[in-house]
């Protein structure tokens, strides 16, 4: 009755442009489409006002981040992500309270597989507070790197749906959630029955989660990151199928970095107080300038000052 054959042969061809119109850069002159007329006007305006028409660094980086892993396959077939695997998109926010971030909090976006453990996500979250170095090091600046917080304070927890998932992989890990649970229970504050579990025992598939609900990641005692799950979907053939690349960072915040006061070029690594050699208090220096200014050739301290290692929030840019 109905001849479906005509479609079978050429369904795409029927929609494709004639050959002379195949340059996607050029908007056809006489297009009837409103979208194109608007875009054309916008592009013309851009041509008039812009001096150099190319992608800025942020844009290049954003595109690079978003697309670098697409379609990747593992060398070892064992690491291939299987069909039917879940893919979660997580936004991890930073505990920044600067006024300029009032409307738009910086966050990073991470893709995680449903079968991955919570600890795998925990290890992939990069935060400056993990890199903080406590103490004053003006007398022995070379020893500073041995005191990174990440290695000293390993406790952390995720909070999902009434349960604290504590990282207990190392003997020195503490149950950070205990005080919160005790606080909640002590006066029956209406937070229900909060529970705690081991982070390393759970994968994302084990959890029941709500999309768009603000959850929490807490580490270093009080560095609190809001975590929002923005999407859950089935893995797709075009996705990165190399299990080892997950959790996969696809979007990163871009923060201004504090520069060295001397060279004005490199990101600050040191901050000094009561510095007889500095014009400001506090004053920031990169590693090279700091040592050149404050120590002689033998490494002896010059002048009076207190020196603290400084980790810039923009260090992950």
């Amino acid at each position: 009755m109905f001849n479906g054959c005509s479609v079978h042969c050429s369904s795409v061809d029927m929609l494709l442009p004639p050959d002379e119109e195949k340059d996607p850069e050029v908007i056809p002159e006489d297009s009837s489409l409103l979208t194109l007329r608007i875009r054309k006007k916008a592009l013309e305006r851009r041509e008039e006002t812009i001096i150099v028409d190319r992608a800025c660094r942020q844009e290049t980086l954003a595109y690079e981040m978003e697309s670098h892993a697409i379609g990747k396959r593992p060398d070892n077939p064992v690491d291939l992500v299987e069909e039917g695997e879940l893919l979660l998109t997580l936004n991890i926010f930073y505990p920044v309270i600067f006024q300029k971030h009032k409307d738009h909090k910086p966050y990073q976006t991470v893709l995680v597989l449903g079968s991955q453990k919570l600890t795998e996500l925990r290890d992939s979250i990069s935060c400056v507070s993990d890199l903080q170095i406590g103490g004053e090091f003006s007398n022995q600046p070379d020893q500073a790197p041995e005191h990174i917080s990440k290695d000293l304070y390993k406790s952390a927890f995720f909070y999902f749906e009434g349960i604290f998932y504590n990282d207990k992989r190392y003997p020195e890990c503490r149950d950070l959630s205990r005080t919160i649970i005790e606080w909640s229970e002590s006066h029956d504050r209406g937070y229900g029955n909060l529970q705690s579990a081991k982070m390393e025992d759970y994968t994302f598939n084990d959890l029941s989660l709500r999309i768009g609900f603000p959850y929490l990641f807490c580490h270093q005692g009080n560095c609190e990151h809001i975590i929002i799950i923005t999407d859950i979907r089935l893995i797709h053939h075009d996705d990165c199928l190399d299990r080892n690349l997950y959790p996969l960072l696809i979007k990163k915040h871009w923060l201004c970095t504090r520069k060295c006061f001397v060279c004005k070029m490199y990101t600050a690594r040191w901050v000094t107080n009561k510095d007889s050699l500095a014009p400001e208090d506090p004053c920031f220096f990169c590693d090279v300038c700091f040592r050149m200014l404050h120590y002689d050739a033998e490494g002896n301290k010059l002048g009076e000052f207190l020196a603290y290692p400084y980790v810039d929030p923009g260090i992950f840019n």
Partner: protein
Amino acid sequence: MRGVRREGGRGGGMCSVPGLQADCEALLGAFQEADTVRFERFAELWRERRFHAIFYGRIRALERNKFTKKTLELVQQYFLPPYAFQIRVGALYLLYGLYSTQLCQPKQKIRIALKDWPEVQRFQQDLIESQHYDAAYIFRKLRVARAFHFTAMPKLLNYRTKKKIQENEFKEEFKDPSNRVNSLITNDVLEELMNIHDHYQKMKCVISADKSQPDKALSLIKDEFVVNLKDITLEHQEWQQKRMKLFLNAKDADEIPNREEEGTSLASEGSERANALAKIKYRSYSAVAEASKSRRHRQVKLESSDSGSDYGKSQSRSRKNSKRPQAARNRGSAEIQGEMRTMKETLTRHVGMPVITEEETSDEEEVPLPKRKKRR
């Protein structure tokens, strides 16, 4: 350098894609006017507009991805209820066209949410049952091309400050005439109500002093309650049809003058249908309810596949066409409510609720008519 920076700052400017909705609606509108669901006709309309060029212009990769995502997201909405069958088929073709002509590498995918997937499958089943093989083929092509992302939510969540959010408003004309009222008060529900009402009346008679008539003290609800409810629903249905016609007429009043006549003829056709429906309803009231119940669903099914199999290019056919999803939806809700209804049915049987044919039927048929005359 300044120029470059500003450029970057405007990266998100394309987000809302100005003009796109108008273009898509124009194409779908033309497809609706063409009164067909054939892919051939759609392709003609697409080529006329050179719709493939929608992705043209100097756009850099990041923005192109964003723009393509937005485009697919916009069109995908027409592919789902509450849009009429024909619009949904048009949206399917449009999705196919946009998906295959997009310039992203790899291609951006069409998001289908978990909650919508059963609906999509039902739609596909409908296509096959009514022998719209071109549409079914296009859908299958999209599946094979792995064009879909199976997601938990229809849209990727995006957090922005409030001022930027604005609700998308879609065209009323594209919507399926079925609505909440119709899906809530179905024939079955009316019938059930009628039975219960009758039973109630009868019980009252039984416990009354005068066995032929219930006591005055027992008259706690209005006797013609069910009839009134049915009238209100019919009235609503007619009002809705009229409003649709107004929309259509207002749209091409200056284009085709004789469209008006057509409209009124359609209108009378519509109310005729309503009348016929009402008659069927009352006839079925007088019949045995249990027997008709299961069979009626099958009738609906049969009717839909019948109307699909005759490919006349006549007006009436396409009207039937656009009504199909309604039938399909009823069927769908019937499936969902199936359990409940079987429960109800068994309950009914337990109580041994009789279906009584009484003189009520005769005066019921007269009640709605004068009312309708009044409104004309």
